[in-house]
């Protein structure tokens, strides 16, 4: 069993780098744990448990700042949790090598999403469709930078919902928050303002991770001795990263993160192809 002295600092680092890159710790944590010799299914199970802590921790602040749209979150949760249950079951039934490859591919996808995210700008709401209107998917939030309340209307909920089911599958399957995927759906499909989209995705991630975690718990894949240092480490790392991000948030940090992500993606795919 991997020792506390090794797991704890690695988890802090994973949480830190994840937060700096605007993602959860999972994308860094899982490759790191497997490099330490932890079986990938155990790594996935522990990661998704720690995702509950990091996402709930940051969601609590965003919700109280009135940035999160609870109705959008609670509507979309219905789809992500079912996806997560299915995804976790697939992982348990699967062999290890394909998991490495899928993980690498999703990292590559997140890389592209993050790369593209810099080029997206939100526009004022157009006409809302009947479905989204019936679902009351609209809101407003106090924008500190603009110094006014921004009103918005979400669109195409009928299209966003099934896509969220897919995001849930990825989360459950790989033990990550899959925040990049969720934000992409919020932004491009449903037309939410960026701040609302990231904070609402955070809220959804916690519940989605819980659905996945309970499947892994029952399968006996969560070892508390491994989970404890990881949960503590990732939360501490994420907290530090978020604090630092407020002061840093420049292009250089983004580039370093994108670089790390790319290396990890290549490494995971390579290991998967080699048969682990």
């Amino acid at each position: 069993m991997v020792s506390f002295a090794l797991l704890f600092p690695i988890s802090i680092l994973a949480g830190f780098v994840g937060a700096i890159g605007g993602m959860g710790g999972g994308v860094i944590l899982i490759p790191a744990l497997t490099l330490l010799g932890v079986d990938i299914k155990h790594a996935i199970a522990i990661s998704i448990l720690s995702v509950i802590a990091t996402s709930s921790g940051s969601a609590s602040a965003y919700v109280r700042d009135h940035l999160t749209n609870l109705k959008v979150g609670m509507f979309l949760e219905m789809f992500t949790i079912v996806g997560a249950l299915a995804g976790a079951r697939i992982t348990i039934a699967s062999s290890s090598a394909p998991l490495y490859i899928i993980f690498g591919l999703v990292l590559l996808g997140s890389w592209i999403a993050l790369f593209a995210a810099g080029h997206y700008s939100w526009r004022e709401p157009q006409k809302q469709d009947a479905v989204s209107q019936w679902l009351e998917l609209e809101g407003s939030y106090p924008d500190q930078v603009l110094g006014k309340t921004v009103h918005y209307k979400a669109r195409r909920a009928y299209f966003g919902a099934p896509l969220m089911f897919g995001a849930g599958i990825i989360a459950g399957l790989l033990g990550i928050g899959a925040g990049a995927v969720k934000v992409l759906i919020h932004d491009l499909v449903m037309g939410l303002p960026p701040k609302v989209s990231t904070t609402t995705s955070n809220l959804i991630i916690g519940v989605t991770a819980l659905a996945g975690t309970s499947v892994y718990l029952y399968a006996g894949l969560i070892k508390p001795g491994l989970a404890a240092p990881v949960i503590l480490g990732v939360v501490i790392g994420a907290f530090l990263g978020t604090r630092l991000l407020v002061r840093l948030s420049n292009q250089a940090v983004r580039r370093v993160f994108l670089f790390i992500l790319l290396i990890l993606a290549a490494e995971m795919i390579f290991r998967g192809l080699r048969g682990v």
Partner: protein
Amino acid sequence: MNVPPSHHLVSRTASKAEARQFEMDVLVGHILLYGVMLSLLLICSGLIWRWFNAGNLRFDYELSGMNLFQLVAAEMKQALHAELRPRLLLSLGIAVLMLTPFIRVLASVFYFLIFQKNWKYALFTSLVLIVLTYSLFLR
């Protein structure tokens, strides 16, 4: 409610429904915050206790074929042995962590049902609650 300066503009124009939404925000935010904090506290205490008891931080136990409630029940029984008590704290920390989003959803159901009388969202959140309950009771 204590409204920070930046929200003045909002509170002035807020309709009744929006004001209620804000209360909901505060409720959900606090559930998540205190849940995570309690969980971390339990895990930390378990680790520290173990350190003072045994001089190491090794917890080599597995939880197989148990859902959350079976786990807590089993750990409670084993905690009768003094040397296993730090382990109980660790397992409880994990249990509290898992229950945090669950309680958030539970509170939302009641909020939509009782305070907002929004049947549509009471139904949606209930569906989420049912699926989560099912997953926590997996066997």
